[in-house]
């Protein structure tokens, strides 16, 4: 750009006032279009990149399979989740297809033959003689809902709170962080116990409990990221160009911290699911006879040395879920990371 073409009269820097600058908006910047030259939309671009990541794809497929079973499993098992079989308590798993692994024996004794059970319980039965297969998939449904709610809460509360607190700083940050400390300082269990006074134990109580503290770690991470980015040149540039705080957060900061956010989300999913298990443990989780992965694992743990299967199956499903959520998180982060673009 030569000086001749400069359309405005030159001022010395001391004479510059705010009105000399005008925000020209994002869409008017010619460079923006040049980057998008390939003509692929952002989302599609990310999807293509995601598909290239084998781990993430495997994770997605496994999650879909688990989701499929969570929907189909209770329907095809032939048992209701609350159907008790008297006398058939703690039957070991028996899968004809995998008979070398699960043949209905426990410590060398074929329990099915011993008490004359003809059906096959694929995952065995629990301490009341309920079909564990049905209960595990019922529980998986609950865990999916909780995972979903946890993500929503993280995104709605955690991200917003962290961004505002970090970006505006000063008094706003001070007050908002003190509020966080207060929320975090009061033992969760005290608050949750109070919920039971108002609501019956159940899904609503779990969700409300998640809303109290589930998002705090996310907001801390987002805040720290915002603190880091808000001092950087491109944010300064946008500020100088007159963009308001909201636009800067949305357009400049958010894309940069997306990676960290996704990783954090993937951490809050297991946290939320374990938290549900903790609530079940203190009697504030789902009510009997309903099942969740958390409550199944909690119960199974008590029989870990005796009836391994009570713990094994819910833990496998949970661990697989966690593993896959993490793989997907990796894939998503790489796919959305703006800095990876163009490589």
């Amino acid at each position, binding site marked *: 750009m030569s000086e001749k073409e400069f359309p405005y009269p030159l001022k010395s820097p001391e004479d510059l006032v705010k009105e000399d600058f005008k925000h020209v908006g994002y869409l008017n910047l010619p460079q923006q279009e040049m980057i998008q030259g390939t003509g692929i939309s952002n989302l599609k671009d990310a999807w293509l990149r995601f598909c290239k990541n084998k781990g993430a794809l495997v994770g997605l497929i496994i999650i879909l399979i688990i989701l499929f079973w969570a929907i189909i499993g209770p329907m095809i098992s032939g048992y209701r989740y609350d159907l008790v079989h008297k006398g058939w308590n703690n039957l070991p798993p028996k899968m004809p297809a995998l008979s070398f692994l699960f043949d209905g024996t426990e410590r060398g004794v074929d329990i099915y033959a011993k008490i004359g059970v003809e059906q096959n319980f694929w995952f065995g039965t629990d301490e009341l003689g309920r079909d564990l297969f049905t209960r595990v998939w019922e529980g998986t449904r609950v865990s999916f809902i909780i995972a979903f709610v946890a993500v929503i809460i993280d995104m709605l509360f955690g991200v917003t709170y962290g961004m505002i607190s970090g970006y505006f700083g000063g008094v706003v940050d001070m007050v908002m962080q003190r509020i966080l400390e207060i929320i975090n*300082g009061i033992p969760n269990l005290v608050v949750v116990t109070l919920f039971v006074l108002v609501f019956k134990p159940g899904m609503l109580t779990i969700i409300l409990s998640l809303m109290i503290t589930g998002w705090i770690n996310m907001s801390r991470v987002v805040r720290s990221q915002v603190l*880091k980015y808000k001092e950087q040149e491109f944010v300064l540039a946008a500020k100088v160009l007159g963009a308001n705080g909201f636009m800067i957060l949305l357009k400049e900061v958010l894309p940069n911290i997306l990676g960290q956010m996704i990783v954090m989300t993937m951490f809050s999913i297991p946290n939320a699911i374990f938290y549900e298990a903790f609530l079940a443990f203190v009697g504030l989780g789902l009510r009997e006879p309903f099942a969740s992965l958390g409550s199944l694992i909690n119960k199974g743990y008590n029989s870990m040395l005796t009836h391994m299967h009570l713990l094994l199956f819910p833990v496998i499903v949970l*661990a697989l879920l966690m593993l896959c959520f993490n793989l997907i998180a990796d894939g998503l982060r790489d796919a959305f990371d703006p800095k990876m673009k163009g490589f």
Partner: protein
Amino acid sequence: MVKYVLKRLFWALVTVLLILFILFLLLEFMPGSPFNEEKLTVDQIRILKEHYGLDKPFFEKFWIFLVNATKGDFGISYNLQKNMKVSQIVMPRLWVSVRLGLQAIGLGSVMGVILGVISGSNQNNWKDSVATIMAVVGVSIPSFVFALTLSFLLGYKIPIFSMIYQANHPFASTILPTISLSLFTMAQVTRFLRTELVEVMDSEYIRLATVKGLSRIKILFKHGFRNALISVVTIFGPLVVNVLTGSLVIEKIFSIPGIGGLLVLAIQSSDYNIIVMVTFIYSVLYIAVNLLVDVLYGVIDPRIRVSKGA
């Protein structure tokens, strides 16, 4: 900086007071009472409440607590260790928890940093995969399953380590719980460090350093590591507090007299003074760690000024 820290300390005081006030308010509405033996008559319960001063109006109770607390007196236990001074119950357990917590954080963060660096600097090869899998396994397996498995294998099958806590061998008897407890710290640190390192290693200044011909190790530790630390420090704060304040399940499995189990027991049996004192310690720790983290931001990355507004 000094002024900033002083200001924060003032706010910390206000926050702690607010926390205690709200906690008192919540406890007022909490269902259950410390005196609820099946066999107590209504009259007896009234006498007990009078005796322990629980029948006083809310503000009076809170004020009495504040006055006593400034003298370091947090009252006595109502039923967990009846009539014993709460501080006598809480403090020994706090030290046990803190000791175990520090061991776990030490082990967890060393392992986490090693794995994170390996993973972040060898993106997408087998070393990365192994480290990633370990980190994922760390958050995927419930800690009690891991702990009981460890206890079964290394305490019982191959009896190398003690399966339960022994007050006279506080280190030797806490090796298994330390490993169990460090798993989550390790996983968190690995994941965050990897994410950050991948990002940092991709930035211009690292490329410049590479072009300058610096060795890989030097680049990693002199330039990459420091910049990656920021996010690790953030998650480290709450993590430290969580680990220091004990874990219910680990304490249960290894019979450790820690503070996590104490709080749950106290809440379940409505032992108010213990709840209050544990909460007090927990919130002071949390606030202190948060303050430390905010100060550390500035030290690690001089570009960040928490104290300054937008």
